[in-house]
C-alpha cells in the first residue's frame, strides 16, 4: 500500500480522534461510533470523506459558543465603528508603535483603554469559573467597564488637553455609558464563555 493511500487514512484517524476528545460528552459517543466505522471503509480518501462528517457534530457541540462569540464580536465591532476609541488605541500601539503624537497627551488614557481589552475577559473567566454561570460574567463585565469610565475621567479623559478622539462629551455622556456597557458586556461574556467551556472540559477530563 503506497503512502498516498496510507496517509489520508492516518490523517482521518488522527482527525476523528482529536474531534472525539474535543467534543461535548453527548456528541463524543457518536463521534466514537463514526470512528468505529472507519475499519469498514476501504481507501484512505473514503475514510477522510467519512471523517469530514464530524464537522456538523462538532458544530452541535459548539454552536451556542460560536453564536455567542459572533454576537460579542459584532457588538464590539459595531461599538468601535460608531465610536472608534478602541480602533484609535490599536492604531497607537500597533500601527504607530506608540510613537503617535496622541501619546504625548493621553498616555494613561490609552494605556487604560488598551488594558481594558485584557482585564475584562480575564474577569469574565474568573467570575464564570467561580459561579459556573455565564450571566455574572456579563454583569461584572458591564460594571467594571463603567467603573473604568470613571477611572478614565480621573485620568484626564475628556479634559481640554486630550485629543479629539478621547474627548468626552462629543455626542453625549449617555453614548459614553452605552459604549462602555456594550464593550464590557461583550468582553465579560466572551471571557465567561471561555471560562465555562474550559472548566467543563477540565471536569470531564478529571472524571
Amino acid at each position: 500500500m503506497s503512502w498516498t493511500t496510507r496517509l489520508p487514512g492516518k490523517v482521518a484517524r488522527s482527525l476523528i480522534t482529536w474531534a472525539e476528545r474535543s467534543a461535548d460528552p453527548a456528541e463524543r459517543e457518536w463521534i466514537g461510533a463514526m470512528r468505529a466505522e472507519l475499519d469498514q471503509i476501504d481507501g484512505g480518501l473514503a475514510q477522510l470523506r467519512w471523517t469530514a462528517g464530524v464537522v456538523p457534530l462538532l458544530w452541535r457541540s459548539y454552536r451556542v459558543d460560536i453564536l455567542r462569540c459572533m454576537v460579542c464580536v459584532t457588538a464590539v465591532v459595531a461599538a468601535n465603528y460608531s465610536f472608534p476609541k478602541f480602533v484609535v488605541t490599536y492604531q497607537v500601539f500597533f500601527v504607530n508603535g506608540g510613537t503617535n503624537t496622541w501619546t504625548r497627551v493621553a498616555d494613561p488614557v490609552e494605556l487604560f483603554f488598551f488594558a481594558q481589552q485584557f482585564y475584562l475577559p480575564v474577569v469574565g473567566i474568573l467570575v464564570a469559573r467561580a459561579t459556573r454561570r455565564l450571566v455574572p460574567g456579563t454583569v461584572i463585565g458591564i460594571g467594571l467597564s463603567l467603573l473604568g469610565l470613571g477611572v478614565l475621567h480621573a485620568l484626564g479623559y475628556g479634559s481640554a488637553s486630550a485629543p479629539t478622539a478621547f474627548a468626552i462629551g462629543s455626542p453625549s455622556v449617555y453614548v459614553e455609558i452605552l459604549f462602555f456597557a456594550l464593550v464590557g458586556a461583550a468582553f465579560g461574556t466572551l471571557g465567561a464563555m471561555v471560562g465555562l467551556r474550559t472548566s467543563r472540559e477540565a471536569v470531564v477530563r478529571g472524571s
Partner: protein
Amino acid sequence: MPRRTNISPQTLRVLTQLLTRRDAWHYGYALARETRLPSGTLYPILIRLAEQGWLQTKWTEPDRPGAPPRHIYRLTRAGARAAADRIDSRARTRPVLRARTARA
C-alpha cells in the same frame, strides 16, 4: 394534540431504510451507503432520532479481536409507528416514494 414536526427528505430516506428491515440492527456505514447520505448528514439525523426516542442504539462486541466495538441502530416501536405514519403521509403526495416503500 402535539404538533407534528416536519421531516426532511434525508430523514425520510433514513427512516425508510430503517423500516425496510425493522427488527434488524443497522450499522452506520451500511446505512450511509444504502441511503447515499454523507456521514455529516446521516449522524445528526441519527442523533435527532435517538433524542426523540425513535431510535434504539447499542454497542456491539467486535467481530474480530483487536477491532473496536461498533454502534448499531434500529427503530423503536414508537419510532417505527411514527416513521410509517410519516412515510405514508409523504407518499400520498409523492408517488415515487410510495413505490419504494411498497416494494420494501
